[in-house]
């Protein structure tokens, strides 16, 4: 009942926002903030929340007097989960709306689609989602986790005493770049840890895969071989619900075969009946259950903003929060919203993250932040069972793939390059300046 009422108000809010987004264009001398998240199509499920988060941050910032004495003005567009449309919309934001910064994208492909536009028009985008790495663009700041800020620690935990000293691994993922890369990295990492080939099972499924009977049955058989087994899931979005439901029904409990997921957060859980999932894991840089003053405050502001007491927060929201605050700080520091100035100003900027520590923007455009492992609770929350001591530096180019091990990213002189090959000393890829 409550949800419905809440969502109804949500609707009215949405409409009014849409209105403002247009009218506001008339307003003079504001700092325009582009919001490039899918509000329709398959990705709307995840991205709409981030759109609202940005709007909340902007509202908050304006209450505190805006930036450089100007008000912030959101420009919301809907790329409709259509990848070419992302490029088109990005261009529209930069050229037609002349926004000073863009917060947006979720899927890798949408980012890849926007990238050339950003680089051509020297735009600035903050990308708030965990991703496969292997990229560092001059015009993008990656505030989500790189593989070494999620996958690697997760494995370490599983192999640890507390994690149940797992010896056998199922790498289950949706068949696209993020899982492919992550699993490649994990594979070589596991082997470096002395896990045998036969103790690793890799399985890929299409997007939105809904019939998991066979695969879950296979996992069960794989797990019956005696050794302690765990599933590392990079299964994406919609496919998760049927996956977990099947796990529950085939009686695979977290104690027998724990599943640790990199794409399942509070938001996704809010769409699942979590009772059968208690004990399954997730690795993120933030959990709603994290205990800190800032987090409590953030949750309160969010729930009042979205007018829903039950509404959850999640890791990409924190990433957006950090990204936004860093940008704001950098703008203050640079005294302008001019992209190059902001970029130079933002390196080394630290802002509090929601888990109590601070996040630092490194010169490879990735963050330093802590990694947490949480166990799913029956209330749809995560119980934090493990966390890294201090922050982990986001690594754009993983050390566990032969080709990318040679490459580093550093946007300050002397390197000034997103993919600088230590071997050849050449900066390949981007071609500006």
């Amino acid at each position, binding site marked *: 009942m409550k949800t419905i009422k809440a969502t109804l108000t949500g609707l009215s809010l949405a409409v009014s926002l849409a209105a403002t987004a247009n009218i506001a264009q008339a307003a003079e001398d504001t700092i325009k903030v582009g919001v490039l998240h899918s*509000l329709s199509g*398959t990705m709307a499920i995840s991205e*709409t929340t981030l759109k609202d988060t940005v709007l909340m941050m902007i509202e908050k910032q304006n209450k505190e007097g805006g930036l450089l004495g100007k008000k912030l003005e959101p420009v919301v567009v809907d790329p409709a989960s259509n990848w070419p449309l992302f490029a088109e919309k990005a261009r529209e934001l930069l050229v037609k709306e002349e926004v000073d910064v863009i917060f947006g994208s979720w899927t890798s492909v949408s980012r890849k689609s926007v990238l050339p536009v950003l680089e051509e028009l020297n735009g600035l985008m903050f990308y708030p989602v965990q991703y496969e790495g292997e990229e560092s663009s001059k015009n993008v700041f990656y505030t989500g986790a790189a593989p070494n800020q999620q996958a690697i620690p997760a494995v370490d935990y599983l192999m640890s005493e507390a994690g149940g000293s797992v010896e056998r691994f199922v790498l289950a993922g949706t068949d696209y770049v993020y899982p492919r890369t992550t699993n490649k990295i994990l594979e070589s990492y596991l082997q470096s840890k002395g896990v045998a080939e036969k103790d690793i099972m890799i399985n890929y499924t299409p997007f939105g895969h809904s019939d998991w009977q066979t*695969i879950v049955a296979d996992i069960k058989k794989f797990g019956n071989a005696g050794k302690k087994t765990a599933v590392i899931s990079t299964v994406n979005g919609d496919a998760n*619900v*049927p996956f977990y*439901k099947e796990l529950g029904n*085939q009686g695979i409990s977290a104690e027998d075969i724990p599943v640790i997921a990199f794409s399942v957060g509070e938001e996704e859980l809010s769409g699942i009946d979590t009772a059968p999932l208690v004990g399954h894991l997730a690795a993120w840089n933030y959990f709603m259950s994290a205990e800190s003053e800032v987090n409590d405050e953030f949750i309160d502001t969010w729930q009042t903003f979205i007018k829903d007491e039950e509404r959850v927060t999640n890791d990409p929201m924190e990433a957006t929060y950090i990204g936004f605050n860093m940008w704001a700080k950098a703008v203050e520091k640079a005294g302008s919203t001019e992209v190059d100035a902001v970029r130079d100003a933002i390196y080394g900027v630290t802002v509090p993250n929601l888990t109590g520590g601070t996040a630092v923007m490194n010169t490879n455009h990735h963050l330093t932040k802590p990694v947490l492992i949480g166990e799913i609770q029956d209330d749809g929350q995560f119980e934090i069972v493990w966390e890294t001591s201090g922050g982990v530096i986001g690594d754009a180019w993983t050390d566990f793939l032969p080709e990318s091990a040679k490459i580093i990213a550093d946007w300050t002189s002397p390197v000034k390059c997103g993919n600088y090959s230590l071997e050849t000393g050449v900066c390949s890829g981007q071609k500006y300046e």
Partner: protein
Amino acid sequence: MKVLQRLAVLVMLCLPSLAQALPDDLGQQLLKGSWTEREQLASTLASSPDALSLKAAQLWLDGELFVLKSSKQLVLSVKEDKRYRVTDLVSGADLGLHKKRAIKKVPLNNKLRGLLRTTLSLQNLQSPNKDLRREAIENLLGDTSAESLALLNQVQQQEQNTDLQALIATGLAVDALESGTPQEQIKAAQQLGDSNHPVAAQALLAQQANTDDQALLAAINKSLADIEQRRRFYGAIENTFFGLSLGSVLLLSAIGLAITFGVMGVINMAHGEMIMLGAYTTFVVQSLLPDHIGASLFISLPLAFLVAGATGVLIERTVIRHLYGRPLETLLATFGVSLILQQAVRSIFSPLNQSVITPEWMSGSIVINEMLSLTVNRVVVIGFSLAVFLGLLFVLKYTRAGLSMRAVTQNRAMASSMGIRTGQVDALTFGLGSGIAGIAGVALSQLTNVGPNLGQNYIIDSFMVVVFGGVGNLWGTFVAAMGLGIVNKFIEPWAGAVIAKILVLVFIILFIQKRPRGLFALKGRAIES
């Protein structure tokens, strides 16, 4: 560690329990202590003879044991709207209302959960409840410490139930295979060959690796072969079951379309959204009656039928009515309608997926034996899809309404001249098709996401099924759905999910070449019309 517990239990089983209170700083230890320390505490609590500690252990396992941060007391808590009513574990004294952040759940991870459950379950070796005993014995299997062996032997005397005796026998055999005399080993090896329990295979493999006694090896290999054979046999059964259940999902999603598209010839792109409406109805019912989850599905079925059906009638009266004889236009219009419905749901219920709870009676699985178990919800869905299919067949064949529906769809002019109100009938037919889709939605809400994209995920498959089966032929739809389901499931194991799907599509394309009007096409002159 294990040894320690087992010993404790052994002692406890023999001696009368002697009272022993909880340490005062237990709360403090549990909260601040390391995971290893917690494990210590867990096993002592769970294996202690004292009732209170056992209760504490149980609560801890169920995640209902809290610590009041201020006083570090172990407490229970009950939610009273925003606040939590806290009572002391030991004294049961009421400690008043507190904010959520004032209390902390006693930390628990999978390792602890396992530890607590196994240890506690050992208490149940004597329990009158068969399943509890089974669980207890399961915990002893494959763990060959002398103590657990002693326990096994002990329960073997008392156990009456034959299944459980078999289970115990397996456990003992595992041990014998590992550490018995050669004769015992061979006997054990042969014995394990008849067991379906995974530990049997594990033990055999383990022994196979580190023995060089030829006789024993022979016995082991024979037993392994037997087990493998049985596994393959049950695997095939399981696969067929998977196929049927996938088929039943296809059938459910397609059957409504078999009417709106198959019978009426409306290329109904909004069909998926009708399914979606049904699923959302379930969600609404559950959120309105949170205390009657068990019944929610039964309440939802008629409601879903009404909601989707009514929407269907509305669509038919406002849009499709004007488009008869122009099937392609119906495609465009209904596609528009589907966009509108999706967005409507997105706006009303938020774009997030909604959580639909699976009632108790539909979760878990029916265990045939250790090698084969069928998940309950799938069984239910298969049965349900059959029921819907037959019901629909009945309505169309043996009811007046069904008769007039067929009359109108087959010869509109004739029907109307016979005094049938074609307009009404059209509306009813479309409503029926949509309603059925709604019902399907209720069932699918148990298997997959309930979200704005739900419909999109099923629409294409639905069309494939209907067309493959032969438009306008319900039996065709049925056979097509089940057939495709099973084919898909038998390809999947060796080709993988994606390739399986692709192959099925290619198969459909080629099949249509052979039978350009689907499986159950009408021959002869009828083709012309």
